[in-house]
């Protein structure tokens, strides 16, 4: 599949030269355009402010017909990111029926940033964190800030 490589190159050069605000995109390995290292600064108006989160993007061989695989490499206290070694993320646009070949990685990065500002509490991976967010916001903010400081990338 030579053609989609052009797409990957184009997307990478776009994302690395013109990234969404507060983000930085680089390659994990210079020779491999299919694994991206995305650094996202915690948005100012969120408990993650001051933090920096390392997110890994792996573009599958049949990209863009299949969505990128996105994982948090920096631990984060967030209901849409699993609190384990994998750091899986739940984003609507990455689901098989929502991902379209014309969807872009840049949109995914923006969606993640959006989640840092407003988590999706109705579709959580970590139920307890979602409940806490809804019922005890003060405690949630406190813990999220604590983790942000502790695990900063």
């Amino acid at each position, binding site marked *: 599949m030579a*053609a*989609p490589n*052009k*797409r990957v*190159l*184009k997307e990478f050069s776009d994302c690395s030269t013109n990234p969404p605000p507060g983000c930085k995109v680089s390659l994990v390995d210079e020779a491999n355009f299919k694994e991206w290292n995305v650094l996202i600064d915690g948005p100012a108006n969120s408990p993650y402010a001051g933090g920096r989160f390392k997110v890994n993007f792996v573009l599958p061989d049949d990209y*863009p017909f299949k969505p990128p695989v996105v994982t948090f490499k920096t631990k984060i206290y967030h209901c849409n990111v699993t609190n384990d070694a994998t750091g899986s993320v739940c984003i609507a646009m990455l689901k098989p029926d929502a991902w379209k*070949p*014309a969807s*872009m990685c840049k949109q995914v990065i923006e969606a993640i940033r959006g989640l840092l500002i407003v988590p999706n509490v109705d579709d959580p991976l970590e139920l307890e964190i979602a409940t806490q967010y809804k019922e005890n916001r003060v405690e949630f903010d406190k813990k999220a800030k604590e983790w942000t400081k502790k695990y900063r990338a």
Partner: protein
Amino acid sequence: MESEDDFNSARSTDDEMMDDVESGYSDDDFDDLEIGEEEGFDAHDKITATQKQSYEVEFKVWTPKDIDEAQLRLINEVKDVLGQSPEATAILLRYSRWNREKLIEQYMDNQAAVLEGAGLGESNSTEARVQTLTGFTCDICCDDTSPMTTFAIKCGHRFCIDCYKTYVNAKVTDEAEAARIKCPADQCNRIVDNKSMELLVPDNLTDRYHELLVRTYVDDLENLKWCPAPNCEFAIQCKVKAKELKKVVPTVHCDCGHDFCFGCAYNDHLPAPCDLVKKWVKKCEDDSETANWISANTKECPKCASTIEKNGGCNHMTCRKCKHEFCWMCMGVWSEHGTSWYNCNRFEEKSGTEARDAQAKSRQSLERYLHYYNRYANHEQSAKLDKDIYVKTEKKMTQLQNHAQLSWIEVQFLDSASKALQRCRQTLKWTYAFAFYLERNNLTEIFEDNQKDLEMAVENLSELFEKPTDQLEKMKVEMMDKTAYCNKRRIILLNDTADNLRKSRHAFWSNDLGA
């Protein structure tokens, strides 16, 4: 052999040979049970009336061709009412789960909303699907070769045709999606219509695509279900609704030979209703081994009824929980034992007798379960040996042909006997699950008598069946009689339970205790 006609209707498809030969009916009489599509079985209607047993339900087997035609017919009918193209009508019908009345009503009510919901919203492009363009860049592969063949559906989101093809192929192959594939543009909900799909799907995938399309039709309709047998392509139509399942056990027979319950798709479980089957299967998965073990290895403390395993040591037991001291052998109070430490011979002592009575009571529910479970499992085990029995039968039939110079048709009675055995055991097995939940009333006795009669008939036939081959020829008549009797007993039992279920005359325990 009038009864043969009765069980014609209950047979699985493979076993008609003898029945047909003897009764003189052709395969067609099987169709009588189906919901006639006015296809000229009128002549058989009278037979149907007398053949239909009360435990049987009406159903019809659909071939892939039938399903295809039914869809086309519906699309053609509805397209004129809505004034839409056949492709759009198909999308609309799939959107409304093939509910034609609902679709027409909603469409008349709010056309725009229905079109939007079905992914057919405002068409802002009337351009041709395929266009060869110069200076075009595909947003998927970023290729800008000029000129380029491009593709778009009504929404106008245009991509190079190769990407479009790769996209729909991946949907068809990887996600088994056909009827609800959306435009490849981000956020666009427009559905790729049938005609476009025909252009995009490569030859080697068209069959698969059509299969998936047809599938949505069956999946969407409540009265159609796929036969669950591996590789079977037929679907069954049956009118029995989910809410009726407490009163009917809708067992259907697919043309592939598989008997299953239309309600839960589980293998034929007559006479037990679906909810009991579900409860029973779950209970057996959870409990049977544990219950067996508890029954074999433990006793309850005579004072606090805690379950105790004696894992060694002497008969002088002290309950961990209530500190009660008793003798493991006679269950009596230890203090009455005196010095007979290791050898309890005080069986008749009063305290011991009482304790054993209490013990017996608490054991009752467990034993009750095991009673039914063991019989259920026994018949199930026999059913699992079906294959062996069948192979053995075939061998015997060949032997008999060579041995006694009998023709192939003349030895078919063995095949019939084997099939009757299997079928009756299947039924017997479920009568035990049924009985476990059955609350006692004056009908219970009739049920148990029927069960006993069927069991006896089955065991008698089974015994005959095991005889050496050289004796079989002489027993042909006896065997045929016993086969017919087995089948008859099964029908009597099934009709009886079906009638009682329909009239809600059976009551069932809501718990597992039988009390």
